[in-house]
């Protein structure tokens, strides 16, 4: 007799899957007991109420917020006293030149992609690239933070890394794509960071699915030694600021 898996019971208890009738569960006392235990544990967790927020919380939040909304967002320090327009025009020319050069050496793009490239101005393409890379770095940061979390003392000897591995594999595929895009768009710092990130993601993706506490710590140490989390964080913030400043400048010009 095949019992229901713990995952099936958790999904049922938490209402995560459509509650289809389960003939085995209806007859199996052991599985019913497991389901009751999970339900009882969830009820106990429900009793852990967050304290009531202060009655005037919205007023307090708004009071603290109102003055800060007027502050202009912090902008990155400009390294060279060159107007932003000149920088973007140069970037556009470099991107066009890069695309032309790459086009000579690579297979021709599919017709739809070519039409899109013609219809989309280079500056827009770079902006789109920045937005998707920033979202990618955001997701990467969450994965690295998850792995950097100290393992609870009470936890088991073996740690299951399968979901992190799956996550890392998905990130690797997009990481390569964005690295090529950043390289072609002349976003050297971004391309360099993504190149640095790849071996770290590969390391996570290729770790055993079950690791010992010792192996988990070694993996954490290797990630910490690479300093990649800090670099990703800084790049993420920088891109975010760049994206906002571009939106602000468009707003000032009335193009949005």
């Amino acid at each position, binding site marked *: 007799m095949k019992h229901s898996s713990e*995952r099936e019971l958790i999904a049922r208890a938490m209402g995560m899957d459509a509650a289809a009738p389960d003939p085995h569960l209806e007859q199996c006392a052991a599985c019913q007991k497991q389901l009751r235990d*999970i339900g009882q544990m969830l009820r106990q967790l429900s009793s852990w109420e967050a304290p009531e927020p202060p009655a005037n*919380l919205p007023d307090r939040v708004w009071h603290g917020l109102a003055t800060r909304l007027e502050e202009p967002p912090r902008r990155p320090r400009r390294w060279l006293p060159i107007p932003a327009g000149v920088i973007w025009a140069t970037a556009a020319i470099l991107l066009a030149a890069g695309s032309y050069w790459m086009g000579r050496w690579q297979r021709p793009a599919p017709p739809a992609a070519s039409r899109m490239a013609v219809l989309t101005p280079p500056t827009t393409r770079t902006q789109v690239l920045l937005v998707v890379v920033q979202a990618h770095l955001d997701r990467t940061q969450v994965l690295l933070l998850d792995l950097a979390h100290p393992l609870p003392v009470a936890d088991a000897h073996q740690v299951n890394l399968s979901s992190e591995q799956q996550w890392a594999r998905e990130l690797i595929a997009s990481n390569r794509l964005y690295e090529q895009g950043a390289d072609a768009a002349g976003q050297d710092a971004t391309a360099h960071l993504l190149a640095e990130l790849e071996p770290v993601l590969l390391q996570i993706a290729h770790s055993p699915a079950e690791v010992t506490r010792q192996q988990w710590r070694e993996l954490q140490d290797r990630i910490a030694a690479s300093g990649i989390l800090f670099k990703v964080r800084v790049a993420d913030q920088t891109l975010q600021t760049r994206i906002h400043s571009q939106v602000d400048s468009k707003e000032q010009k009335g193009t949005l």
Partner: protein
Amino acid sequence: MTKVEDESDAVTAASGEPEAFRLLVDRYSRRLFRLAYRMTGNVQDAEDLVQETFLRAYRSRDTFQARANFSTWIYRICVNASLDHVRKRRAQPIAETIDDPEGGVQSESLPGDTATPERLLLSQEARRAVEAALASLSPVERAAFALRHYEQLSISEIGAALGLREAATKNTIFRGVQKLRRSLQPLHGGSR
């Protein structure tokens, strides 16, 4: 939260008017406070994080315009702000940061209980066990569990808030619940 309310909030946020934003503060502060508290275990931090969430939301309102679901977007900002915060002080377990001027655990009796010293002690013990169990989760697991169990968000909404695909979101919740079971097993005696 109905779809119409959510769309109306989306329009309000996209308008970018500070006074219109005030309506969103009124509507979402309390639930964001509860989420931030479940992530940090600290009342003052939770309040600061609510403010930080709205500030980030206001500043990035332009990136929101293309998105359809306001509540998922604001939850995502709150979760990210809370993860940043937890990372900064991740060495401290959640149970040590619960606000209590006496340095102990907040007393909380179960509904219908007569607050005899014995019952109070039992509920305090149970609360301590729950806090310790939640502290054993990674920040992402805690966020995923809180959004599902306490905020009743769907898997796709949690995935959107955490930047995870559906399978990864479910795995994160499963892993979290499995850890909670192991931590709370002595209280329930369940085994497999």
